[in-house]
């Protein structure tokens, strides 16, 4: 099956990003495809390459970049939500791109399942 993932909260503050990551890894393990993850609202804060968590903590942004590279996942950040929060091309981590909300509706149509993680 093809899974689309929607993430509505930023990293660290809520568990949403963590749950979405562990779900996505498991979906890939189970042999499914995850063509696209869409980052909306505070979810766009998952996309900054400036993040520098403590040594003993997980690096949520890097996990996304690595997962995307290994599995060819399209990490799309909502442009309006991103501009409002200061997420721009100049701070974007590898694997992320900024685009419109149409990319969310499109994956809703194309995927067999859309799974939402928020607060």
């Amino acid at each position, binding site marked *: 099956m093809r*899974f689309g993932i929607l993430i509505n909260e930023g990293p660290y503050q809520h*568990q949403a990003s963590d*749950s979405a990551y562990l*779900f996505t890894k*498991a979906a890939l*393990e189970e042999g*499914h495809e995850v063509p696209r993850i869409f980052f909306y609202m505070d979810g766009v804060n998952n996309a900054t390459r400036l993040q520098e968590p403590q040594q003993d903590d997980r690096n949520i942004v890097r996990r996304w970049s690595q997962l995307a590279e290994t599995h060819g996942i399209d990490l799309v950040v909502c442009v309006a939500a991103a501009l409002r929060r200061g997420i721009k091309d100049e701070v974007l981590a590898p694997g992320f791109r900024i685009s419109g909300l149409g990319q969310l509706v499109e994956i809703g149509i194309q995927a067999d399942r859309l799974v*939402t993680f928020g*607060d």
Partner: protein
Amino acid sequence: MLHTVNKSPMQTNDLASCLAHLGDGRLLLIEDGVYGAIAGTGAAKQLAAPASEGRVYVLGPDLEARGVDQSTVADGVQVVDYNGFVRLVAEHGPHQAWV
């Protein structure tokens, strides 16, 4: 339909509202929602009916993170891991998050 609830039933009305709209769907408790699965609590009573029909699940890693032993989970509630979460969405989707 696979419903997920990610909030504690003592803090928000999300579990109550989800159960009121569950119909013949499935419910998976995740994140802080897993506290709803502890036997003997008010929440566990609310979900006893669908649980007795095998339609209620709880995410094991979220239980373990919070120190809730699987032996304390209410009757009929099935513990799954993330792979089980994926299979529930695949078999019983679409997914509705009661965020």
